């Protein structure tokens, strides 16, 4: 498997060539190289996936020594096990489809080459992240994907809102990375290595105290909260929708934002040995799931609905991790990558058809006009809502089922409520966009057209995956293909946790029926609100709900809280310190000293003669004389 270095290297090469030659030489054909590179990386990932089947130990490829300082020896090494193979395949597979889609979507954009260059850089970074052999290289990929996200959110950099959103994303992630970095340092200080295998062996052997493990796990999780947009570090993700839609699909839905989930799953041995931290993970995930879903109800921008939905779905994944349901989390990660990429690309197709309109209040009745987009979007919506037998049903139900069977009834109920809200806001979006009255601006209405083939084909493939993926890799629940495949990765963690394997029985069927009923009632309510009585019910309900609605509509004031609590005090406080301490106190003393010394006038005199050459010459000659005396 020595070829695995090629998986990230291909997109890297595509990036380098495109960024250096794109502007002047490649220009409008900038998509070819990245697409080919992605296809190559996908092929290799599939090969790696097949080859890693059943392997007991991860395959490690040492490239070269990266850090070397005393005991701090960190190699630049890649590691392939089943988990990284699944991640690589998902990233390159979905990535390839999105690259192809982008050929149509970004057509004619002045930054065409730049777009494909950054997307390739992202693919490289993400693949490094999942193939890293140690925490420091993971950290490299971790920040590098953040950088690409920054570039791509701010792709339309002349838009102030886009530029601000990019910065916000990077900074929020930096806050998370602050914790992550400290966690890495703590690991090294206690264990003396950062290689996964070395760290997990040490943890398994009980070399690290329980309290230290909890500290490590929590610090790492802070990083995950930033990257995977968990409350309260979720604020950057909705704003990230300023980026082009394929970016939202690839980076801010399917892959990068799941890096936190991947990292926690990767560190399953640590988290399994740190139960209190695991509980925190579960609680934050559960809260985020319902919190973000609630905001999704009141969004009118189609992409923002999906953004909050992503935050919420990531919450489900952490909810799974919180009870040690590692595979269920990865399962949902994979199906979510399919159906959320589909929904984003579908919304991109809508936006494309609507000449850039994103506000659902100015859409409606589009199902007849852009049929393929509608049908594929509907597949994604059903999968997201958790309707049998779509992909999202299996993965979400597995998460909820494991909560119930593990005795986490409160989390199960909260998860069900969030699922109800999810179905509601998803179909609210479907109805407002594709059904009901045509509220389109007449000028826009004239130009509505179905998207080109390069966009439709990826939609079709993702729609198929959104329908069947769960059936293929997830059946039977808790024992499907994915479970059996990933078993070696999580074996150790499961032993530590003592996770029991529940068989598939009558209880599961009951739970499934309950969750489908909940989802269907969410859809029914959306139908009632937005199709049957769209003119009165939404307003009436909004008024009735009072503060609840106000909170939801204002995103629970999180941005405002950050502004008042952190950003303004920081900036204004710095201003005050600068003016009253740096300038007034320190410089005041210095100037006073200068004046007392009386040197200011005297010292300025040499400049007034204007013959500095002479001074330089004199000075220099003096030096020469000294040297001559010495050497001769």
């Amino acid at each position, binding site marked *: 498997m020595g070829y695995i270095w090629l998986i990230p290297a291909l997109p890297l090469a595509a990036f380098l060539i495109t960024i250096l030659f794109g*502007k002047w030489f490649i220009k409008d054909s900038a998509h070819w190289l990245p697409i080919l590179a992605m296809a190559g990386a996908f092929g290799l990932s599939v090969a790696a996936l097949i080859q890693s089947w059943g392997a007991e130990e991860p395959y490690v490829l040492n490239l070269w020594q990266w850090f070397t300082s005393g005991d701090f020896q960190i190699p630049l090494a890649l590691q392939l096990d089943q988990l990284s193979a699944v991640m690589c395949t998902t990233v390159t597979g979905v990535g390839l489809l999105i690259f192809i889609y982008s050929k149509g979507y970004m057509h004619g954009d002045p930054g065409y080459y730049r777009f494909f260059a950054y997307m390739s850089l992202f693919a490289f970074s993400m693949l490094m992240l999942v193939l890293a052999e140690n925490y420091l290289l993971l950290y490299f990929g971790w920040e590098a994907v953040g950088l690409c996200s920054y570039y791509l959110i701010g792709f339309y950099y002349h838009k102030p809102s886009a530029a601000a959103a990019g910065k916000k994303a990077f900074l929020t992630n*930096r806050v998370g990375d602050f914790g992550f970095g*400290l966690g890495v340092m703590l690991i090294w200080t206690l264990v003396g290595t950062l290689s996964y295998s070395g760290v997990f062996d040490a943890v398994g052997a009980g070399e690290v105290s329980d309290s230290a493990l909890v500290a490590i796990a929590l610090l790492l999780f802070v990083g995950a909260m930033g990257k995977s947009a968990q409350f309260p570090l979720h604020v950057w993700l909705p704003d990230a929708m300023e980026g082009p839609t394929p970016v939202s699909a690839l980076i801010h839905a399917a892959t990068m934002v799941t890096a936190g989930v991947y990292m926690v799953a990767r560190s399953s041995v640590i988290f399994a040995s740190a139960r209190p931290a695991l509980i925190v993970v579960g609680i934050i995930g559960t809260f985020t799931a319902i919190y973000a879903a609630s905001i999704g109800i009141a969004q009118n921008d189609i992409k923002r609905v999906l953004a909050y939905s992503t935050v919420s779905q990531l919450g489900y994944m952490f909810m799974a991790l919180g009870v040690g349901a590692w595979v269920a989390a990865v399962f949902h990660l994979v199906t979510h990558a399919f159906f959320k990429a589909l929904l984003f690309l579908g919304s991109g197709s809508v936006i494309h058809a609507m000449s850039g309109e994103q506000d659902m209040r100015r859409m409606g009745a589009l199902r007849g006009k852009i049929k393929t987009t509608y049908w594929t979007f509907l597949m994604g919506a059903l999968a997201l809502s958790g309707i049998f037998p779509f992909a999202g049903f299996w993965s979400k139900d597995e998460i909820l089922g494991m909560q119930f069977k593990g005795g986490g009834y409160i989390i199960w109920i909260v998860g069900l409520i969030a699922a109800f809200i999810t179905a509601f806001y998803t179909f609210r979006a479907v109805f407002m966009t594709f059904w009901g009255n045509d509220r389109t601006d007449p000028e826009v209405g004239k130009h509505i057209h179905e998207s080109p083939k390069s966009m439709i084909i990826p939609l079709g493939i993702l729609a198929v995956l959104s329908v069947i993926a769960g059936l293929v890799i997830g059946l039977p629940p808790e024992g499907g293909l994915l479970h059996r495949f990933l078993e070696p990765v999580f074996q150790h963690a499961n032993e530590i946790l003592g996770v029991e394997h529940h068989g598939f029985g009558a209880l599961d069927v009951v739970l499934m029926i309950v969750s489908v009923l909940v989802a269907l009632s969410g859809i029914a309510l959306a139908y009632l609100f937005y199709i049957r009585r769209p003119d009165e019910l939404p307003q009436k309900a909004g008024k009735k709900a009072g503060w609840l609605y106000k909170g939801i509509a204002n995103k629970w004031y999180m941005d405002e809280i950050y502004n008042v609590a952190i950003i303004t005090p920081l900036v204004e406080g*710095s*201003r005050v*310190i600068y003016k009253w301490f*740096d300038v007034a106190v320190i410089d005041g003393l210095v100037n006073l000293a200068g004046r007392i010394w009386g040197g200011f006038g005297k010292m300025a005199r040499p*400049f007034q003669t204007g013959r500095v050459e002479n001074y330089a010459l004199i000075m220099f000659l003096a030096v020469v004389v000294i040297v001559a005396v*010495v050497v001769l």
Partner: protein
Amino acid sequence: MEYGFAEQIGFRALTVLTFLPSVGALIMLLFMRKRPNAYKTTALVTALVTLALAVYMMTQFQTGTAEFQFQEDYRWIDSFGITFHLGVDGISMLLILLTAFLSVIAILGSWNYVTDRQLAFFVCLLVLETGMIGVFAAMDLFLFYVFWEVQLIPMYFLIGIWGGARRIYAAIKFFLYTFAGSVLMLVAIIGIVWWYTKDSGVTTFDIQTLQQAGFPYGVQALAFVGFFLAFAIKVPMFPFHTWLPDAHVEAPTAGSVLLAGVLLKMGVYGMIRFCIGFFPEVSVKAVPWVMILSVIGIIYGAAMSLIQADMKKLVAYSSVSHMGYVTAGLFAFNLQGIQGSVLQMINHGILTGALFQMVGFFYERSHTRLIKDYGGVAQPMPVAAALFSFFVLGSLGLPGLNGFVGEFLILVGIFQYKIVFAVLASVGLILGAAYLLWMYQRTMFQELRNKKWLKVSDLNAREIITLVPLVAAALFIGIYPAPVLNLLSAPAQTIVAQVQPYLAEHGSSLLKLASSLFGGN
């Protein structure tokens, strides 16, 4: 194994290296007074040859030993035991390479920057280079002091003559601060030499001899303060930093590049050689206080950067923050901290040098450095914006670029000393990203408000050429820092060995109290 010049390289390489720039300057002064193209070319060629020699010496340099290499030792002023003794270890070799490298960049970058008294400008740059190399190569305390003063003068002229509107004020402030430091250092030098003479009956300024002297605690304490203040001003550490923003804002681009790139490092270099080398016991005692000042500097410098309206001032305050990491890493007194600290000096030289260079390029086009006069500059200057973002990212410590390697090693080093300082220093990473990205957003991104920028051309070939080597260096160290780290390994071990005997009684009683509260080792 002998590490004299004769065995290693066959000629007096360090003397040649040190004075080559000044010889070039002399030739320019004597023969090319009225021919700008000739003297500019001579300046560049001189700097290039110096760099080539430095690179050649690097290839002959023996890693894996902390011995001083390419040594040359001549009698100078016998009656005071002063010698003309040169030599380099891994740390000074790297810093000399950085000096030679940045001198080329600075000269090429200011090709058309000054029009007034151009010859003198380039002469100053070359004399400055001699002074800087001399500081790092000197193995005699008196010689060190001479070079220390020599480099002060051309920098004083660079700021005072070719500076901006408030150049006189800035130059004098620069001079006063450093002069105050120099006086303190001089007193300390005289003090320890006097003590050594009294103690052993021999007068010497030889650095290695003095390092073996084993000064009594009282002498150590007093002399430490003298040296330390001089170097803390140079670094500059909080609260001795206010000369830096003024000096940078007024200095011409080349001055800023060399000031930030090299001159600040002389302060840390001095701490390594003298504060720690001569007074290890007091240095260990001083650790908590140095750490506190460093961490304040990290956060304070970053906070001040956040609100600056002038780009140069912003980068200047960011230097205060970055140099805080360097001093903190050094005084963590473990391999990671020390190696990270020296590496970060090189990184800071590359990245901040590049940032100042680029601000200079923008200034040449727009004649403003105020952030509010910028905005949307990525449109007329895409190449410049791309390169600028590269250096901004390096500066904020993006993994894969050089800044990360140094910073992370430093943090690992501090973490082992006391976790609470590592936590506080890490806050600087968040703030660093904040002020740099905010500046970038307001200057390069957003809509183009100032119509002046529409007429501006992107970077020309010469300007790009000055930046490409910096990009290459940043990438190389970021991806494959092992060669540099190996070079620093032996000197770092020596430093640790110097302080090791005293580390057991690490920290003052006050800090012990704090450590019991916050944990740590």
